[in-house]
């Protein structure tokens, strides 16, 4: 995910490293992902997605029945983002120690709006806000394209 975003000499060190635990490998990558800005303009983005599932832990730390205001999915999302940022900072410290531009962190932040997009599915089948937005945007695009396709078929009398 850092190809073309991190200087070649730093990237080579990163690819040649022996510990696979230090790699940042998201679950899904998308390219040309349409995103509507506040101005209404649609831009195409690279995005990375991390899929996480959750279970009710026996001590109920995440699912706290006494504090229902903060949902477990949103807690998990915050954890994932913090983890990815920490990993990117760690890579900067390891491979670009004297470099103030933080190549790995800035490359990571160049994906999506500000890095990783978490897709969390929990014990009761509930999902986080980002997952809902993804489902809505995919459904909208599919509906629009299907409508255009049916219009084209009608125009040209295609079966």
């Amino acid at each position, binding site marked *: 995910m850092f190809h073309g975003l991190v200087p070649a000499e730093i990237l080579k060190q990163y690819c040649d490293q022996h510990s696979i635990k230090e790699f940042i490998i998201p679950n899904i990558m998308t390219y040309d992902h349409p995103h509507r800005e506040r101005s209404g303009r649609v831009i195409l983005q690279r995005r990375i997605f991390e899929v996480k599932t959750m*279970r009710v832990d026996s001590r109920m730390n995440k699912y706290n029945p006494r504090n229902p205001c903060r949902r477990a999915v949103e807690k998990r999302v915050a954890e994932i983002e913090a983890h990815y940022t920490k990993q990117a900072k760690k890579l900067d410290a390891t491979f670009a120690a004297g470099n103030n531009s933080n190549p790995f962190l800035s490359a990571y932040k160049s994906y999506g709006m500000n890095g990783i997009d978490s897709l969390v599915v929990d014990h009761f089948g509930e999902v986080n806000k980002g997952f809902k937005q993804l489902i809505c945007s995919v459904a909208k695009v599919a509906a629009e394209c299907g409508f255009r396709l049916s219009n084209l078929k009608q125009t040209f009398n295609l079966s």
Partner: protein
Amino acid sequence: MCNEFHAMIPDHENNLSSSDALHNDSSFAGFTLNEKDKAGINIQRLSKDLEDATKEHIDRIYTQNEEGHFNYNMERLSWYNTDEISMQCLRALPNRDGMFKNDIFIEAVRRILGLPSHILQPFADEHHFIGRNATVVDVHGIMVKNAMLINGDYHRMHASIQSLIIDMLKKTQDMGYSRTAKHVSWPCPSRDSQTIL
């Protein structure tokens, strides 16, 4: 030809009234006999008010945390955590096409409501164990879900959800949505996948 077709249909089917077609329930599917009858709107409003009142009542019970009102914390958790996405499986009612089997449907509903698992009931007697760590099977299936199993445990759920999202994106990809790449990173990341991407 139309005449021949009508002649083929038995007489009783030609003279069907609206009550015959709707099995003596003319209110079925929103049909009304009276043009000015707006009872449907009132009933809808009434049922919405009743649902809102019931929601408020249950919410108050859970907020006050009165022990007598709920048996398990799971019910409370489900009340606060379920959303419209988790309720979607209720739309896939069991049918003869086998879209959603009866036992799965029951299990899904019980999970959403935070009730004890129907399938695990015979095993939740504190004498049954599961997983490599041999944890005791509980009624809600939390330990079953957390258990480390040979040939698949909760990793399987992760993989199926990941595949579902990729399928979803790929279907829209054909419509020009976005190009998708799956990292072969899970459960054990391979180094080749990183270098390719």
